C-alpha cells in the first residue's frame, strides 16, 4: 500500500482546515476576524483551501482602530477581494466621536477601539462564532486556551467554564446569546507560520520586510511615522532607518526592529537568531506577565 509521510506542516494544515469546516457545519452565523497580520493571512489562506472551489462561506470582519499602517489597509481590501469574500469594517462610533487615539489615551485606546469595538461588532451583526488567529505559543496564558473558547452573553471568558476538547471532537453547542471564539491555528508556532507563508507563497504586508522608513524613538520603541497625524515633539524629526516589523498593530504602538532582511528566508533567519520573544514589540503587553489573561477576561481577543 502507498505510504506517505505527513510533515508537521501538513498535519497542522489538515487540523486547521478540519476546525474551519467544523464551525461552518455547526455555526449559524460565523465570521472571520481579520487583522491583516501574518497570522490572519495564514488563517485566510487555510479558509480558501478548506472551502475550495467555493469561496469561504463567511465574511471577514476588521475591527478597525483607524490607526493601522496604511499598507495594512491596502492589503486588507485586496485580500478580501481576491478571496471573493465580503469585508466588514467596524469602527466604534463612540471612540470616533471622542477622538480616542493612542497618543492621548494610552490603554483606553485599545480598550475602546479593539475590546469594545469587537463586542459591538459581534452584537451588531449577530455573529455566533468568530474565528481568530491566536496561537498557543504566543503567550503563557494562551497555552491553556481551547480551540473553541466560549464567551458568555456579555462576551466574558470564564477560565473555569471551558469545555474539555478530546480527539478531534469539538462541542459547538451554545445557548442563545452565547458565542464562541475559535482559533484554527492554535497549534502553530511563529516559525510554522513563517515557514508556511514561504512554502505557500502567501501575500503579506510589506512592513514585515525591511525598507528605509521614517522613524522616531519613543519610550524605548522605534516607532514609524506612517502619516501626518503623528504628533512630533519639539525638535523631533523622523530619522530614516532600515527597519521592519515582527508584529503589526496600531502604528503608533508598534515597535520596529532595525533589520536588513528583505526576503522571507532572511526574515525567518532573523527571527530564528533573535533573542527576544514576539510580543515584545507591542506596547500593550509591557505591564505585567499575566496582562493578556486579564484582557482576555475582559473580552479582548
Amino acid at each position, binding site marked *: 500500500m502507498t505510504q*506517505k509521510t505527513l510533515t508537521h506542516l501538513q498535519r497542522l494544515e489538515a487540523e486547521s482546515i478540519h476546525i474551519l469546516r467544523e464551525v461552518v457545519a455547526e455555526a449559524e452565523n460565523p465570521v472571520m476576524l481579520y487583522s491583516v497580520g501574518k497570522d490572519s493571512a495564514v488563517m485566510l489562506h487555510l479558509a480558501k483551501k478548506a472551502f475550495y472551489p467555493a469561496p469561504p462561506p463567511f465574511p471577514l470582519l476588521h475591527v478597525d482602530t483607524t490607526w493601522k499602517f496604511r499598507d495594512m489597509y491596502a492589503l486588507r481590501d485586496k485580500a478580501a477581494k481576491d478571496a471573493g469574500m465580503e469585508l466588514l469594517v467596524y469602527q466604534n462610533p463612540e471612540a470616533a466621536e471622542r477622538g480616542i487615539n493612542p497618543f492621548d489615551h494610552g490603554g483606553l485606546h485599545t480598550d475602546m477601539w479593539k475590546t469594545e469595538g469587537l463586542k459591538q461588532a459581534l452584537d451588531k451583526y449577530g455573529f455566533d462564532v468568530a474565528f481568530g488567529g491566536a496561537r498557543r505559543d504566543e503567550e503563557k496564558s494562551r497555552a491553556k486556551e481551547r480551540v473553541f473558547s466560549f464567551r458568555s452573553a456579555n462576551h466574558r471568558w470564564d477560565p473555569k467554564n471551558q469545555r474539555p476538547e*478530546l480527539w*478531534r*471532537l469539538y462541542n459547538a453547542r451554545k445557548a442563545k446569546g452565547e458565542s464562541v471564539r475559535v482559533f484554527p491555528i492554535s497549534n502553530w508556532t511563529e516559525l510554522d507560520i513563517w515557514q508556511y507563508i514561504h512554502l505557500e507563497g502567501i501575500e503579506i504586508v510589506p512592513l514585515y520586510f525591511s525598507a528605509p522608513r521614517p522613524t522616531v524613538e519613543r519610550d524605548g520603541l522605534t516607532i514609524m511615522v506612517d502619516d501626518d497625524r503623528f504628533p512630533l515633539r519639539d525638535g523631533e524629526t523622523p530619522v530614516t532607518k532600515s527597519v521592519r516589523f515582527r508584529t503589526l498593530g496600531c502604528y503608533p504602538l508598534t515597535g520596529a526592529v532595525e533589520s536588513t532582511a528583505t526576503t522571507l528566508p532572511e526574515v525567518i533567519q532573523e527571527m530564528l537568531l533573535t533573542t527576544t520573544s514576539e510580543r515584545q514589540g507591542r506596547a500593550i503587553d509591557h505591564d505585567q506577565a499575566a496582562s493578556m489573561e486579564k484582557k482576555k477576561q475582559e473580552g479582548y481577543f
Partner: protein
Amino acid sequence: MTTEPIYKTDALIAENIDAYLEAHQHKTMLRFITCGSVDDGKSTLIGRLLYDSKMIFEDQLATLEADSKRVGTQGGEIDFALLVDGLAAEREQGITIDVAYRFFATEKRKFIVADTPGHEQYTRNMVTGASTADLAVILIDARKGVLTQTRRHSYLVNLIGIRHVVLAVNKMDLIGYDKATFDNIVAEYGEFARSIGIEEFTAIPISGFKGDNITGPSEFTPWYTGPALLPFLESVEVDVTADQEQPFRLPVQWVNRPNLDFRGFAGMIASGSVRPGDQVRVLPSGKTSTVSRIVSLEGDRDLAVAGESVTITLADEIDCSRGQVIVAAQAPLEVADQFESTLVWMDETEMVPGRAYWLKIGTQTVSATIHQPKYEVNINTQEHLATKTLDLNAIGVANITTDREIPFSAYADNRDLGGFILIDKITNHTVAAGMIHFALRRAQNIHWQATDIGRDHHASMKHQKPAVLWLTGLSGSGKSTIANIVEKKLARMNRHTFLLDGDNVRHGLNKDLGFTEADRIENIRRVGEVAKLMTDAGLIVITAFISPFRSERDMVRGMMQPGEFVEVFVDTPLEVAEARDVKGLYAKARSGQLKNFTGIDSPYEAPENAEMRIDTTQMTPEEAADLIIARLIP
C-alpha cells in the same frame, strides 16, 4: 548543572537559511503527554525541554530569572516550572489546573506537549490531553518509586490507547544516581504495567532539574546505556502512517455545493487512502459509487491519505450528507444503534441513567440514552465496583442506545470512528468522553456476521445443490399440482425439499396482506426472503405463486446465488384456466365479488426469459414434473 543545549542549529541558520528551511519543512510531528504530579518535577522537565531546545527567548529568560527569585521554589536557582505554569490564579496557588500545550522543535521533529496536572481534576484533564497524544511520559520521583498515582496515570494512558510509554525516573540526582534503586523501580513498574496491558515501555533515569539524560548521556549514569529522553522522542515511530494501512474511511464533515455542477464531500480521512477511480460506499445508506476527483486549491490530486483534510467528488449523484461516512466499498464499517462503551465522566453533575444526551462521534451528532453502568473502575486499584451512576472523574462501562443507526469502529481500531463525547442537552456542557467497545445488536449490522457453519456446509451435508424452482402462472394454471408432484418425486430421490404454496403462506406469514399491488409485491418479497433462508439451509425450494409482476420475480432472482433461481412459467391460457376454475374464483371475479383478480382486473406479466416453459395444454402434470426434475438433476 548541564545547561549547554546540544541542539545547535544556529550555524546552519546563519550560513544557509534555505538549507535550514528545507530541512525544517520535512520534519515530522510527535504529540506527547507528560503525566505526574507537581512533586514529580513535571513542569520542571517541560521547562527544561523548552530551554534545552532553545525555545526560551532572552526576555523570557530575564522574566524567568526575576520570577525564580520572587516566587521560585529552587532557592534562587532558575525554576523551570515557572515557564509553564500559566494562569495567574494558578501561579499564586502553585498548581496547574488545566491542560496546557507547549511547543518545541529539534533538528528532527516538532513536538507538541500536553501538560496536565496531577491533582483532583487529573482524570478529566489527563484523558483530554492523552486523547491527541502519540506517546506518554510517565514521571516517577526516584525517591518515592511506583505510587498509586503512577498506577492511575498508567491505567489512563492504556485506556486511551497510547502505544508508546516512557517511564522517566526523575530526580536521580537526589538519590546519588543509584542504579539499584532505578532497577528496582523499573522491575516493579514492569510487573504492574504488564498486568494492565502495557506490553512495552522505555525506562530512562533522568534529572529534569540538573539536565541528566535529557539531551544526551549523563556522566553520572555510566551504567545506563539506553537513549536520553530527547533523542528517544526524536526517533520513536509515530502511529500516523499506520492508519494508512487500514481501509479507507472519510467521515463527511461538510458538503461543498458552490453551484449546481459541483458537489464535493469534505472531511478529514480517518484511515486508509483514496485515489480517483476507487469504489466507495456511503454509510449508513449503503449506496455505492466511484471517486472521481480529489479536489484542491492547487489542482486535483491523485492520492490522499489518513490525517489529511480533503474534498472528493463521486461519479454518481447519490445522497450523502454530514455525519455519513464514505468507506472503501469492499470493506464497509459496522452500523448499529446499541453499544457497550467505556465512559469517563467529566461534569460536576453526575450521570443520569435513562436520560437522553447528545452524542457526537466523528462528524455526527445523535441523541443517545445511557443505561445504568455495568460497573465503575477504581482507577487506583483497577477493581470493578457496582454503581448506579458515574460522577466527576469516574470511569465506568455502560451500554448506550442511539436514536438512529450510526457507522462506527471499535475505539481500539480507530480513535476517530470509535471515540465520542456526550453533551448535556440543557447546559451544553461536554459531560463525558466515551470509547466504543462493540455493538450489541449484531443482527442489525450492515454486513453479515460470518457464521462457522455456512451454506456450503449445510448443502454438502444433504448431498445436494440448493435451488429455487419458482413456478409462476395464472390462478388455476396447475402450479400447485405440478409443484406437489415435483416434491414427491424429489423426496423419493432422497432430496431435502420444501414447498412454499401461495395459499398456505397467506394463512400464516402473510395473512396481513391483501391483493392490492403493494400487498402482492410485499407477499413476493417475503416469500423470496424465506426461500433465500431455505437455500442457505441447503434445501431445494419449490414455490407456487401467481407472482404476476416481472420486477418482483427479478427481485427474488437477485436475492439468490447465480444459477440457483429456476423460473418455471406454467403457461396455461386464460380461457383454459378459467374453464377449469377448480376453486371457483374466476366465477367470483367475473361477478365482481373478488377484486384485483389476476387475468380479470389485474394484469399478469408473462416471463420473457424464464428458464423453463411448461405448456399445460400439451402435457400432463406428471410429464411436467419429470421435465422440471430432469432440468434440476441432469
